[in-house]
């Protein structure tokens, strides 16, 4: 499955705002997604924004990336501009949320 637009946008912005290469940016982002329990193919912009703030920020600090807060803020802004804040209605978690509903 192809990576979601949110994931591609975040990787592109990370690469632009840091000294990380394209491969390193994708790797760092995939590590953050893995730790948070999301998949690159299905994650929504709003979900990725939270992952960036809560997980990627620490990941960038560990990698000694300069001004990690600024980088993460830039990624979050890019994701906000992307829109589509709600998670997909047909992602497994959205489906299972509905299935148990009243």
């Amino acid at each position, binding site marked *: 499955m192809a990576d979601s637009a949110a994931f591609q946008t975040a990787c592109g912005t990370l690469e632009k705002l840091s000294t990380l290469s394209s491969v390193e940016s994708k790797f760092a982002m995939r590590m953050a997604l893995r730790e948070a329990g999301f998949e690159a193919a299905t994650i929504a912009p709003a979900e990725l924004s939270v992952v960036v703030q809560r997980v990627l920020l620490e990941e960038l600090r560990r990698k000694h990336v300069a001004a990690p807060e600024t980088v993460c803020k830039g990624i979050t802004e890019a994701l906000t501009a992307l829109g589509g804040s709600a998670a997909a209605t047909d992602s497994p978690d959205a489906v299972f949320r509905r*299935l148990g509903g009243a």
Partner: protein
Amino acid sequence: MELSSGVQSIATLIFVLGSTAVGVKLLLLSRRTKQVPELLLGASILFCGGLGYGLLIGAMIARGTTPMTSADVPMLVVVLTAVGRTIHDLGVTLYLAFMVYVFRRGATWAYVLAGAGIVLLWGGCLVGVAQGSLRTGGIGSPAWFCEYVVIWSYPVWNAIESFRYYGLMRRRTSLGLADPIVTNRFLLWGTGSVFAALAIWTASIPFAFMSDAPRLLVILPTIQIVTAILGVISVSCSLLAFLPPTWYRRRILALGSAPAEAH
């Protein structure tokens, strides 16, 4: 023997009624939401566990003491078997469609695997019918194996997908990014699928002893009780997942540290 038959009858009734309740609930939900997953899952549970299984049990009761290998059965048995098997296999087909649609959309290997399963299921069923399996069961024939290899395996695939997603959801929950009740729902659905698989496998054991009636009579009570217990656990998981009572929701929320519902 009477005790095991009684336990099996009660457990079968619980299983059929529980499956019907869950299936109908999901179908009503699909009418409201107009979404495909609830339609696929609701219909599959209703067709497999409710109508299909119920009709096939009815066929077994109508068959009475006539051996499974005997072709000399009343027309009612043939009709109940034909309708029950068709509805059951339709349920299995929809089940496979649900798994691919929800968990593996866009994954070529999943379409191929589900497609192969559907071809084996219906191919085996149709060839078996042509060979007279509505009367004799066709147990042990290549067509029977084709159909049953799908029936034996589809809950396993579903369990694997559910547990994999449960792992993802647990990590999200720990970050406050997922509802603990939804996370638990994947665990329940996976667990229910494991017990469904175990029940199907256990219920299939007598097929291996069709030519050894004395031994079959010895093992049958144990098989009936074990199958009954496994089936009830399976349908209980479905009920807790898709018709969760308030006390269960409260319990899961109390166990989870993340904010709930408003994900």
